[in-house]
């Protein structure tokens, strides 16, 4: 009776594995969970810095994210839904459902709109970008939840709406023919305005 052979010994010292393209791929299945989470978090933060914050060293503002992912957008959409749900005094679950559905379906429809207008984008990359551009509206919704004053809400929503639109503008406008830029951008603006209106109106 043969016993199960012992697994090959792991190398005793594992250097910090960078994506160098040489050697075997890093074994992400056996690494500690904290490493995985840290890596994903740092990717989200770096993508956020690229997309949302003014970055004078950005090589090409219209260039899509190289390292897109869907965790970031998922967090931001769920966070926005939760914030709106917490702010609402009645029908909390309906508010969450409307917000989540509007944002998720909206991202898909906006991407389809660009594709139908003859633009060139990758479907999931566009979903990712539209999700990251929600970050300013998340911040705005949080502020509106903490301080319930109509004038403040209007001001905060206008500022964050402008910021979100500014973040989404280079990507969307470079994806289509310049003569159709407004046709691709208007629905994005419409979606952010409707989310902004939802933030103001929920009390």
């Amino acid at each position, binding site marked *: 009776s043969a016993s199960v052979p012992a697994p090959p010994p792991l190398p005793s010292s594992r250097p910090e594995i960078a994506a160098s393209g040489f050697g075997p791929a890093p074994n992400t299945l056996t690494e500690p969970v904290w490493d995985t989470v840290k890596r994903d978090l740092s990717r989200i933060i770096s993508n956020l810095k690229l997309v949302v914050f003014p970055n004078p060293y950005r090589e090409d503002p219209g260039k899509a994210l190289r390292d897109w992912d869907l965790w970031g957008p998922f967090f931001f959409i769920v966070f926005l839904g939760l914030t709106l749900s917490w702010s609402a005094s009645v029908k909390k679950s309906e508010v969450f459902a409307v917000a989540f559905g509007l944002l998720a379906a909206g991202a898909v429809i906006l991407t389809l709109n660009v594709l139908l207008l003859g633009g060139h984008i990758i479907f999931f990359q566009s979903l990712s970008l539209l999700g990251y551009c929600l970050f300013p509206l998340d911040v705005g919704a949080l502020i509106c939840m903490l301080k319930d004053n*109509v004038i403040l809400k209007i001001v905060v929503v206008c500022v964050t709406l402008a910021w979100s639109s500014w973040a989404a503008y280079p990507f969307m406008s470079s994806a289509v023919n310049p003569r159709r830029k407004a046709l691709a951008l208007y629905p994005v603006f*419409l979606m952010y305005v*409707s989310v902004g209106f939802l933030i103001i109106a929920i009390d």
Partner: protein
Amino acid sequence: MEESYTTGLPTSHLAGSVPAVTAGEKSTTKQDAPLANMQTFPPSNAGGRRGQVYQPITAQTAESFEQQPTTNWQGVFSVSSYSQYFNVDTDVVVDRMICSLNPVRDDFFSKIDANPDLYGMVWISTTLVFILSSVGNLATYFSVKKANDWNFDVSYVHSAAWSIYGYVLVVPMAYHFYLQYMRSNSNLVRFWCLWGYSLTIFVLSSFLLLIPVGVLRWMIIITSGGASATFVALNLKSFIQENDLSMAVIAAFGLQIALAVFIKVRFFA
């Protein structure tokens, strides 16, 4: 890419089995299946129509021109088969919107003839749904004495979505089928385009309807409803060109007025 099921195994003896597709029944294989073409909808079995349906020349159809345009459902789920209906530029869309505000001219169909688009229908109706639910709620907010008593009424969103999308989808389809039944020429995409653009004026008048004076609101909605209805009726009449279908034209006028009144009563009471 189509897989070939020519394994050669005879399966028709198996009870309830689907007979395998043999190679002989395959149409010519190209990488793009024939596009889903709305001009052949509903699929007509009239022998003379097959192969002679006018298809706008796009990049894809130029390659597969020698193919018979069969009603192949593979094109329904591909985005590229619908992009022919979104082949418009910003200035074209704006020009069509402005033309829809003008109730006196009846040349809308000649304007869109070469290139009818569904962009206007989709996004103008979506804008109208959003405007009605938000401005309608704003109007109730202004009419409430104390700000604490006001609650955002979500039912406005539901009513707006069902009524506007329902109207702009169903009415042109009803006219298309009715005209087909009366053996007149009819084109569903162009009808959708017409009715979609006819909603532009309601987007603008919704902002005017914020003014809380009752009589003024009725005047505004009658004016804009009348303009929109005249636009639809005149253009429909120029398209149909048969005198005994004038009842249909009058019905279109009436339906648009009914929509206008519904908007006023439901959202801006």
